[in-house]
């Protein structure tokens, strides 16, 4: 392993909270991936006689209004919620990076791209997302598409700003003086050197997307209720919240825990990847 990677690991282990957040996330992801093996019940199995049971030895986190096991649904819900979040991150970072680098490197494209970005960023995130889902139709895929459109402008801005700095550095000039082609300059010289801010943005967008999916589903403008996500669980449990708090509390906790961990990780990454922080502690 090379020295920067080692240094990074050492910094990670020095920051206990960030390390904890990373471990929590890792645990959630592992559980979500292993859902069929770790989940105690079938998340869709309804047993109306056991509806709205409080947490017990059999149902650790109780049952919902249709008698389904809350823990199992949270575990399967993690797949959907994190899957949607991850897809949003992937989509927004890929398109955002592409447009950000183009806007930052080529003056002619900068104006048009940034006007669109400004227009999108002028609208409140959640309203734009609701509008897009309403137009596109409520489905998991369309939620991903809508949220990707909402978060792409953030990535464009960050990447463009970093590109503007990096493209003025002498090593880019050296590559131009050597006659290195533009595609290679954009990837090897610019993309590789704006990767850290993209990674930081990705963690934050992950957190926002998990929250936004929950919000959309809660409002009924997101994933259809029959698919278990943390958002749909809260949406369907809310009318029983006074009698069966566990139907909303535990999926809510899952959302808070994963979003919080992602935000802490994002802040931590920002600190750790900051070159100014190299020496002083």
């Amino acid at each position, binding site marked *: 392993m090379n020295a920067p990677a080692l*240094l990074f690991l*050492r*910094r990670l282990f*020095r920051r206990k909270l960030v390390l904890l957040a990373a471990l929590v996330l890792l645990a959630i992801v592992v559980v979500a991936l292993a859902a069929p093996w770790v989940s105690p019940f079938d998340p869709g199995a309804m047993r109306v006689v056991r509806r709205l049971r409080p947490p017990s030895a059999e149902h650790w986190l109780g049952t919902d209004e249709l008698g389904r096991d809350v823990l199992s649904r949270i575990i399967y819900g993690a797949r959907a919620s994190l899957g949607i979040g991850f897809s949003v991150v992937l989509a927004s970072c890929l398109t955002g990076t592409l447009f950000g680098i183009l806007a930052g490197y080529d003056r002619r494209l900068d104006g048009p791209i940034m006007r669109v970005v400004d227009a999108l960023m002028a609208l409140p995130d959640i309203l734009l997302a609701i509008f897009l889902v309403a137009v596109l139709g409520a489905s998991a895929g369309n939620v991903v598409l809508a949220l990707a459109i909402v978060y792409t402008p953030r990535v464009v801005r960050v990447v463009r700003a970093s590109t503007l700095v990096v493209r003025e550095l002498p090593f880019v000039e050296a590559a131009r003086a050597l006659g290195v082609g533009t595609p290679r300059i954009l990837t090897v010289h610019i993309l590789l050197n704006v990767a850290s801010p993209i990674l930081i943005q990705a963690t934050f967008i992950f957190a926002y997307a998990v929250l936004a999916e929950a919000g959309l589903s809660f409002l009924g403008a997101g994933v259809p209720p029959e698919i278990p996500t943390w958002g749909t669980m809260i949406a369907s449990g809310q009318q029983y919240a006074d009698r069966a708090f566990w139907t909303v509390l535990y999926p809510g906790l899952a959302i808070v825990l994963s979003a919080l961990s992602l935000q802490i990780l994002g802040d931590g990454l920002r600190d750790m990847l900051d070159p100014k922080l*190299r*020496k*002083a*502690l």
Partner: protein
Amino acid sequence: MTEPLLSIEDLEVRFRTEDGEVAPVTGVDVSVAPGETVALVGESGSGKSVSSLAVMGLLPRPAGRVAKGRILYRTKAGETIDLAQASPDRVRRLRGAEIAMIFQEPMTSLNPVLTAGEQIAESVRLHLRLDRRGALRRAQEMLELVEIPAAAKRLHDYPHQMSGGMRQRVMIALAMACNPRLLIADEPTTALDVTIQAQILALIDRLRRETGMGVLFITHNLGVVAEVADRVAVMYAGRIVETGPVGDLFRHPRHPYTAGLLDSLPARATRGPDGRRHVRSIPGSLGRAAAIRDACAFAPRCDRVREECRRTAPPLEAIGVDRAARCLFWREM
């Protein structure tokens, strides 16, 4: 010789870093008398700037601290205090009132949202207890003192409206506003063009002559040293390796590093057998020399190195009344 204003004795500064504790300064002995300019010369990583920050009580806290030694300062009132031991509050009051500092980059040292006049006025109101009108009048006098043309108008300019040379003049005005007895100048002309550098050097020199303040001038530029300094202290890897009056030291260096540094100057290039001019260079680089404790830190790069040099850390040995060198074999230089 008059009693020194500042005398640093056996200074050691330590920093905590992610890689454990480091000591960028391990052996600094320097004194400055009133009316005297002492140049602290060294390359990057030599510890010259850290030493000056230690004097000003400006080491980044809590990472940096004075681990050993004394920084004795004789106040206007005539008492001698150890700046390394004094309370931060005491040091802060001396700074600005008796000890002033100017830096390499005046843009970052000036407050961008205050005009030149406001910055100076703010400082003199604090230290000289003047009212607002008096402080502004004083500010204008100071700008005139540092030869800023149309000072009354310039009073209302913001730092970004000025050239680099003009900003450095404002920094100097700010430093001089409280009649300091000691001026610490950390690479004050490094960011400036040569014709502007010459103006600033002449200005600092004139102010020193007129006020009788002592100047500790930190620089990497030997040409600047030759122009401004009375005495020189050469630093390498956190230690003073040689001190002496400027003329004597430049003519007869007693430490191989000083000699090598002087020979590295392009102006001292000699014509080689190929007919082209070459400079004598010091091989290698500073590297981690600051960590060398029980040997001469310069030994890995020294062309006169002997076995003893790798076994013993040489002391700073006095040579006559006003010179010293940290070399076991200075007699052979």
